[in-house]
């Protein structure tokens, strides 16, 4: 093959030289060219396989050398295209070394350690993780390395808002499933990993959320990344709330779609962006997929998205809506069906809904619901579904029975008993806190509906301590691409978290109530990170007296703390204190 190419290459050069010396008359040119051309072609007979090429050329020649010349050029172009691989483009970048030099370079190379050893600035964080002994529920036996053991603490740090982890019905469902199916599912859903309980849960869920179909995932955190990447490719467009959780951030990074950000929960901004984009998108042929992506109940801020407005806008500009209901399923709405129920918007307005079984449903895993073709596509092309074992059967069964617990026990107004009790306790605590926390140490940032109450250090107070408005970086918002360098360590973020930890410790010591705070991996956050919040996770089984106690203590502690930590110098003392936590 190579030799043939050579012959043809030389042929072409000779042909070119021949054309320059000839008379301009076209007939003459072509007849002389034809003679020479045929003459050269006879050489081909000497090459093995050349006869075949010759036959082809002869049959295509048809007394028209220009035609053959054209074909030859095409052939050379094609060869050139196939032979120049992408790697070759970087050839110029590669340095030539002898083996000896490479040995020397390998010997000299000093790799960095696999991970940086945790300094005392960071390692205190490890020591404040509470360890629950025994059953997790409304009352727990808890140990932290700093405080020691507390035998009966009220648990306001668990995301099991409906306290279904202590429900007899859920645990007996799980037990009956373990005694017939074992623990693990032992295979991916497409290979004998789909059990009857999985299909039942899919049916239950789609009936509960009033959609066509549902699909289950083995873990809630990977659901977003897998679902988004299955539908959004390069060239597709997402208009995204800039307050979304880390799971969604990562999902959007991986999908490589085009991104536009609107200010967190700012509907006017969203409208502006959509109307600015619409003249460009109207011309698009074929139409690309476009989504509005938002969380229902924001995990970073505790507020809820303005769904009716978003739905109105997305219908006006023909976008699909992707709604992450991880925190809001089993929480918002009269029967816990999430944000659409809360606003009275039909679920069919939402193209893709994802959520979690691991929080309110006291099971594990994640899910996605929507129309049939969308779900069906995921069964083949969603990575976390295809390449991972299916949800443990007992988890599916407990989730099914959790849905039953929520939907079947209703009061006279048709509201779920569990959910309305959660709403009652949430708004009680919210109002009490709102009334008492007036000393400008804490302020509530979450919505009244959120069962996770976010308390942030007060704005003015933070200004006095010279704490920044937000942490992290804005590069993802500005450029649509995450920053190349991760955020790195922030001492002020660390200190602010430490102040909250001190509050948590005090509440646990004084009143035996376990709270928590927002725990973020600052390094991995691509969007600006809100300042750390103290989190109170309301649980239906916690009594009003305990909530009262909490409010009272928080009031006391915030008084004390605001006196103790007044300015930046006090922060420096904390910096020392933290080292020995």
């Amino acid at each position, binding site marked *: 093959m190579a030799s043939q190419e050579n012959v043809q290459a030389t042929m072409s050069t000779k042909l070119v030289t021949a054309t320059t010396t000839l008379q301009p008359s076209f007939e003459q040119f072509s007849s002389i060219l034809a003679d020479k051309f045929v003459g050269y072609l006879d050489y081909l007979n000497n090459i093995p396989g050349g006869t075949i090429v010759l036959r082809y050329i002869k049959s295509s020649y048809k007394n028209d050398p220009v035609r053959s010349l054209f074909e030859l050029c095409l052939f050379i172009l094609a060869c050139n295209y196939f032979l120049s691989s992408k790697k070759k483009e970087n050839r110029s970048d590669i340095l030539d070394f002898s083996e000896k030099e490479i040995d020397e370079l*390998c010997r000299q190379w000093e*790799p960095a350690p696999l*991970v940086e050893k945790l300094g005392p600035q960071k390692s205190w964080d490890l020591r404040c993780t509470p360890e*629950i*002994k025994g059953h997790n529920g409304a009352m727990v036996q808890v140990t932290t390395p700093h405080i020691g053991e507390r035998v009966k603490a009220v648990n306001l740090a668990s995301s099991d808002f409906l306290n279904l*982890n202590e429900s007899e019905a859920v645990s007996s469902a799980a037990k009956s499933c373990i005694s017939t199916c074992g623990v693990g599912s032992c295979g991916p859903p497409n290979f004998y990993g789909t059990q009857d309980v999985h299909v039942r849960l899919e049916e239950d869920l789609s009936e509960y959320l009033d959609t066509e179909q549902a699909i289950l995932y083995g873990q809630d955190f990977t659901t977003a990344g897998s679902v988004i990447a299955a539908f959004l490719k390069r060239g597709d467009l997402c208009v995204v709330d800039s307050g979304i959780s880390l799971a969604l951030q990562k999902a959007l990074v991986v999908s490589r779609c085009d991104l536009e950000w609107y200010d967190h929960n700012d509907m006017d901004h969203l409208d502006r962006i959509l109307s600015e984009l619409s003249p460009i998108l109207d011309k698009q042929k074929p139409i690309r997929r476009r989504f509005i992506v938002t969380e229902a109940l924001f995990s970073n801020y505790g507020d809820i998205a303005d769904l009716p407005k978003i739905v109105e806008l997305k219908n006006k500009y023909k976008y699909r809506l992707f709604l992450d209901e991880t925190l809001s399923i089993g929480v918002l709405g009269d029967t816990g069906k999430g944000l659409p129920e809360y606003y009275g918007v039909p679920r069919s307005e939402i193209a893709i809904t994802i959520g979690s079984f*691991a*929080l309110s449903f006291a099971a594990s895993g994640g899910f996605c619901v929507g129309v049939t073709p969308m779900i*069906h596509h995921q069964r083949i092309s969603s990575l976390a579904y295809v390449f991972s074992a299916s949800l443990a059967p007992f*988890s599916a069964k407990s989730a099914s029975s959790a849905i039953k617990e929520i939907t079947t026990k209703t009061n006279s107004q048709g509201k779920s008993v569990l959910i309305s009790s959660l709403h009652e306790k949430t708004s009680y605590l919210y109002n009490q806190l709102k009334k008492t926390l007036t000393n400008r140490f804490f302020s509530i940032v979450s919505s009244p509906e959120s069962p996770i109450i976010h308390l942030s250090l007060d704005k003015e107070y933070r200004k006095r301590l010279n704490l920044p408005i937000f942490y992290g970086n804005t590069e993802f918002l500005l450029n649509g691409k995450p920053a190349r360098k991760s955020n790195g360590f922030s001492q002020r973020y660390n200190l602010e978290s430490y102040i909250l930890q001190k509050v948590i410790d005090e509440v646990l010591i004084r009143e035996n109530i376990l709270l928590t705070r927002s725990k973020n991996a600052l390094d991995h956050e691509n969007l600006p990170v809100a300042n750390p919040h103290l989190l109170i996770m309301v649980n239906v089984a916690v009594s009003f007296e305990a909530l009262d106690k909490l409010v009272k203590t928080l009031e006391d502690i915030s008084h004390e703390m605001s006196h103790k930590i007044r300015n930046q110098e006090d922060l420096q003392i904390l910096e020392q204190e933290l080292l020995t936590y």
Partner: protein
Amino acid sequence: MSYKIPNAPVDTRSPEELAEREYGRLKSDDYLYVSRHPVGEPLPTPVDDEPPYIIYISTYISYLILIIIGHIRDFFGKIFKPQDYEDLVEKNGYAPWYDGFESFYVRRLKLRIDDCFARPIHGVPGRFVKCFDRFRSSNLRYTYTGTSTECLNLSSYNYLGFAQSQGVCTSTALKCVDDYGTSACSPRAHCGTTDLHRECERVVAEYLNQDDSIVISQGYGTNANLFASLVDPECLIISDELNHASIRFGIRLSGASVKVFKHNDMNDLNKLIRNSIAQGQPRTHRSWKKIIIAVEGLYSMEGNMVNLPEIVRLKEKYRCYLFVDEAHSIGALGPEGRGVCDYFSIPHSKIDVLMGTFTKSFGATGGYISGKQELIDALRINYITNIYGESVPPPILGQIISSLNVLTGKLNKGEGVERLKRIAFNSRYLRLGLKRLGFIVYGSDDSPVIPLLLFLPAKMPAVSRLLYDCNIAVVVVGYPATPLSSSRVRLCVSSALTKEDLDYVLTKFSEIGDLTYLKFSSGIAGGSKIPGEPPRWSIEEVLEHNTEDCKKPKLT
């Protein structure tokens, strides 16, 4: 008859009989073997046998025909049955959910054999698996008759047979529901850490001879976000070309540079490491901050083992870090089931990041990361699946702890050793039998994953359905999980299977192999009776000699 999957029929058999159906009793001590690689001996390069040319040609022609017919059907279908193509066209100004071109393979090739995938089951996927009977009533719909068929299970990841609904592991899991509930209720750092989590992490670390470990609620999720915590864009990850999707996803998310070496090719790896260190980062030629080599212990599609001794030598020579994904090898390999390190007698401490899953060998779900204390401490506050993801539910922890304790002999002394020896024997027994019968199988001798090559796409449904009719459940895999021309049946061997089960499997395979022309190995991968001739043993001969011969050091 209904479109909905029926409820599982009530099983009236006695508990003893059911237990036997989940985990077959061992009939003779002859059916045991200890899997271990002889120290110092180089790992033999697995020989991938080639079929006759006619097979290759007909494979490509098959795909050509399928593609042409698919396009013809698409062309006429769009004209005459537009309602079937609604999902592929723009509607009211909305783009379709997915491209017609992208989904062509799925619609026109995979859909034809859809009944071979995702067969719904009920009960324990142990020695036998109970599949619901169904028949296809339209393109996407099945009608269920309400009954189910019990099939010999060569499809589930159940290497050590821990998928059981009775016995010590199940009782522990049940007790965990009572003592801890069904859910961990929260991510680890908030209040999702119980004493059970700590215990499980200790047990796992101890089993792997490492300082500490982290358990994660999903194997895929373990890998998918791990690399971002270890590397930044100034680091390099050198990855085997056949690494699992989750590793590739994780690397993509981390933003680090990635280079790929030929599957298990140590010369290529050596060259790649040397050149990478010498060249440094692209354009700037600054030296890499660190280099991580990412490999799997046992490749689930090829049945190959990683050449660990050589990789450890290379990583020490060039001071790279080594990540080993033991998803399939943990439990299934090594005299004590401690994975590839155990199999090659290499101390676990030589591997920097050990990752694995509990799905395959231990009858649970989830994954783990294990390593030096420094690594685990750093990951606890900087590993996003651990911080933001749900924590592992207690019953799963119970299953992990108890199955590991069975393996180390702390529970039911002797049972763990038997399980380990049975998987080793069963893997070799089935592999040798198939080789001798004349099938092309890939992979290492001791691997419990046995891919049997079919090549032609039409043989996938044929073999799957024929075996299903003989009550044997297998997994067939084709493109895109494998190269286009090498569709295969993947057999996952389990300790739960008895020698008689394997004899039955071999007999049926022999018949189906004759029927579908699958016995075309050339003998270069072993199995020949007379060296140099293609192996075509009769089934009687195979069964007669297999028990002794499969325990010889080399399977020939």
